[in-house]
């Protein structure tokens, strides 16, 4: 292991204490510090977005007016979506865990463009600041900004789209930085076939970030010009076409789901082998599945528009193509579960999150089939069924994946351990709260409850009430998780360098790592997943 340098007072020197003061953080080009700053930022926005979610659920508790009027409601559900999507979960795992871990996992000192990385973070914050202005301008278009409604809402939309435009650039640049890093910065011996699966998923989502995000950038720019100059691209009154906006919007916004979810799948693929003490099952299939999902995800955007006035032929084609996303997703699930076969399975918190992920993602995936199927989508489109489906994907998938990763790599990041009992208890709260919130919403959707409704017919009230109550339990779970982790950053028990006995490269260096990650760039001779009795010692992949 690494030889540790020490500070004057005898403490080990690491990336956290090697430089001190606010300025040293602001100006830092260390990927680990940038990752932590991203983490602090996105989690703060997560809390804000969560507060808006609770406001929405509180209003929906009763039929009729409960707390406030429809104008506020429309603003709140819009802000919930905009903040959660653009400020929290799009940067999500890549900007936080990805930034922190990518160089460590491939045996590099940093990403290839550290200054660009710093610029990206501040660009992201700049975009976030503009987005916050939109909060005060009562943006009420929904996070989808559909024209022509979004054309009547001029300044709030101009502000929000400008914000999303900058945030998009931050996303593109992060993707670019990661892609080039993975190509050029791998340590000697870290071949493509040995690359950890988390890195593979970062690679796949980096491609999506680079290719898909410019499209939303252009689209939002056009919407901005439509609002300010009336160029007549999307506005029917000026000869434009609102359906064109939907096409362009979803050309980005379908792949973006995979920008969010693929890295979460990567996290789970890292956790399950470690906590099962088994090699990942079907490494190659998982790699192909990741890249395959990324590729297919460009061809299915029309499934958001089955009833939006597309030609019948396009509806048939987009439905057909959408089914091709289901297959690689199913393959992944089978591989994860098989990895556990005959393992030595620890029930530590990261593994609980990983198992919750598998279960929740199964529900997300199968309800996606209901929506990909034309005959049933005609009924489900724009109902609570869709709302529940994408919360299972994004919250049950991407957010649970993020927290799985945070609990797993927490000792790596801080050299400290959170309180395991509290962590498990919070996990249970989250799990129950989450399912209790959204299972009733599946039922509401089946019954025909449309989304984005301030009020609803009285017969929907009981299920709305259940959903609202559990939403608060869900929030309490998140409060516990965040409180537990935040406390542990400063007061957690100091722990071993590699408490979970992972064989992955990032654990071979000190925890927390030194500023340069490795004292010496490592030479890689094995793949990452050499768990299992006989062969682990030999360390060679039988692959």
């Amino acid at each position, binding site marked *: 292991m690494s030889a540790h340098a020490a500070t004057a007072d005898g403490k080990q020197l690491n990336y956290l204490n090697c430089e001190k003061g606010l300025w040293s953080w602001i100006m830092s080009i260390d990927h680990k510090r940038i990752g932590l700053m991203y983490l602090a930022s996105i989690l703060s926005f997560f809390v804000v977005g969560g507060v808006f979610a609770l406001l929405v659920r509180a209003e929906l508790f009763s039929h009729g007016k409960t707390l406030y009027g429809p104008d506020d409601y429309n603003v709140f559900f819009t802000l919930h979506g905009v903040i959660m999507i653009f400020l929290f979960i799009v940067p999500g795992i890549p900007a936080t865990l990805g930034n922190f871990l990518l160089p460590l996992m491939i045996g590099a000192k940093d990403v290839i463009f550290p200054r660009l990385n710093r610029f990206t973070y501040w660009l992201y914050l700049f975009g976030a600041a503009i987005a916050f202005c939109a909060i005060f301008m009562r943006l*009420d278009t929904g996070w989808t900004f559909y024209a022509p409604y979004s054309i009547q809402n001029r300044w709030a939309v101009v502000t929000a789209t400008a914000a999303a435009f900058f945030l998009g650039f931050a996303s593109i640049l992060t993707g670019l930085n990661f892609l080039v890093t993975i190509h050029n910065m791998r340590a000697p011996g870290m071949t493509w076939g040995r690359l950890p699966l988390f890195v593979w998923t970062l690679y796949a989502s980096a491609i999506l970030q680079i290719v898909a995000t410019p499209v939303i950038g252009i689209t939002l720019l056009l919407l901005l010009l439509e609002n300010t100059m009336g160029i007549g691209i999307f506005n029917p009154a000026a000869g434009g076409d*609102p359906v064109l906006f939907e096409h362009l919007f979803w050309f980005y916004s379908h792949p973006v789901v995979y920008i969010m979810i693929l890295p979460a799948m990567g996290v789970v693929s890292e956790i399950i082998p470690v906590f099962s003490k088994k*090699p990942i099952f079907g*490494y190659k299939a998982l790699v192909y599945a990741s890249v395959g999902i990324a590729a297919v995800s460009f061809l299915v955007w029309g499934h958001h528009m089955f*009833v939006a006035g597309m030609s019948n032929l396009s509806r048939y084609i987009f439905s057909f193509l959408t089914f091709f996303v*289901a297959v690689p997703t199913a393959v992944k699930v089978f591989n994860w579960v098989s990895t556990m076969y*005959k393992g030595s399975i620890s029930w530590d918190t990261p593994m609980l999150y990983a198992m919750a992920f598998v*279960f929740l993602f199964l529900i997300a995936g199968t309800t996606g089939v209901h929506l990909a199927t034309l005959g049933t989508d005609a009924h489900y489109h724009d109902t609570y069924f869709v709302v529940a489906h994408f919360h299972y994907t994004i919250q049950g998938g991407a957010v649970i994946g993020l927290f799985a990763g945070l609990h797993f790599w927490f000792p790596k990041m801080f050299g400290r351990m959170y309180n395991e009992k509290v962590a498990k208890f919070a996990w249970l709260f989250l799990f129950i709260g989450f399912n209790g919130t959204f299972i009733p919403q599946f039922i509401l959707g*089946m019954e025909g409850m449309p989304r984005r409704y301030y009020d609803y017919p009285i017969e929907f009230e009981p299920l709305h009430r259940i959903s609202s109550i559990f939403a608060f339990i869900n929030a309490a779970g998140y409060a516990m998780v965040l409180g537990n982790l935040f406390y542990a950053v400063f007061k957690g028990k100091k722990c071993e360098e590699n408490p979970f006995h992972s064989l992955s490269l990032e654990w071979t260096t000190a925890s927390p790592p030194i500023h340069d990650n490795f004292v010496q760039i490592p030479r890689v001779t094995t793949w990452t997943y050499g768990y299992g009795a006989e062969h682990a010692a030999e360390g060679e992949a039988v692959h």
Partner: protein
Amino acid sequence: MFTFMPEQASEWAPYVDWLNDYITNISVFCILGITAVMLYFAIRYRRRGPDDVTPYITHSASLETAWTVVPTVICFFVFYYGFESYHEMRNPPANAMEVNVTGVKWRWDFEYSNGKRTTNELVVPIGRAVKLIMRSQDTTHSFFIPAMRVKEDVLSTVYSYLWFTPTKLGEYHIFCAEYCGLQHSGMLGKLRVVSEGEFGDYLYDRQDPEAVELPPAELGKLKFAEKGCTACHSIDGSKGLGPSLKGVFGGDHVMSDGSVVKADENYIRESIVYSQKKIVKGFEGIVMPAFEGQLSEAEVNGLIAYLKTL
């Protein structure tokens, strides 16, 4: 299993529900099955200590092929059933009763072929196919009747349509499913399915003369003469300055660039309002005036209804 679908009140609601059940059953089976296996492994192979011995298993070509192929096959079936049912939903029968629907922030206006107009209340006879021809006057809306299992966006740029055959008497919700602003959730309508007899009384109820205006086709006939269409268009098949409009609706028309266009509501509307967008082959030299801004929404709909009768 696990169906909470609303009442089945249209001809294909049972089919949609069957399909939904089919998918749900497979899903529940997979979710419970895979989760059970996962939990079984988690308990059966629970860690006893740090020195547990585990086997080194990396992959299995046969297993992995199996679990790629099986879901693929299932997916094909599901796609096919979904396609089959939907294909029917998108192809209304020729004899369907037509009703014009206009989405306006935040209400639904309906217009029957005899000129009767209603707001937020659509009444249809049981057992007869109904085709709704829909257009928005402002932003995008979406017309949704859960009990009929139909939904389609209502745009301000083109006519969209949907159809269904009601099979059960009763009253059902009509929702707007596309977010349209302040009163989106208040854009509620009521669908009443009544008997043939009751429908006749309803349609020809002249108690309330306010609600009944000139039937669209008659209004169209009037405007056709008034706006001078007759100067160029015959209705008996003989050629004038413009093509005869006899049987114009529904036919395939060859344009000056060689393309073939099917004359549906959208084409006819465009031919009248923006007449220069597509020129009929053989009539390149004569300019039909564009009627953009000179005809009200109801007059355009009326002209279309009239041309359909020719």
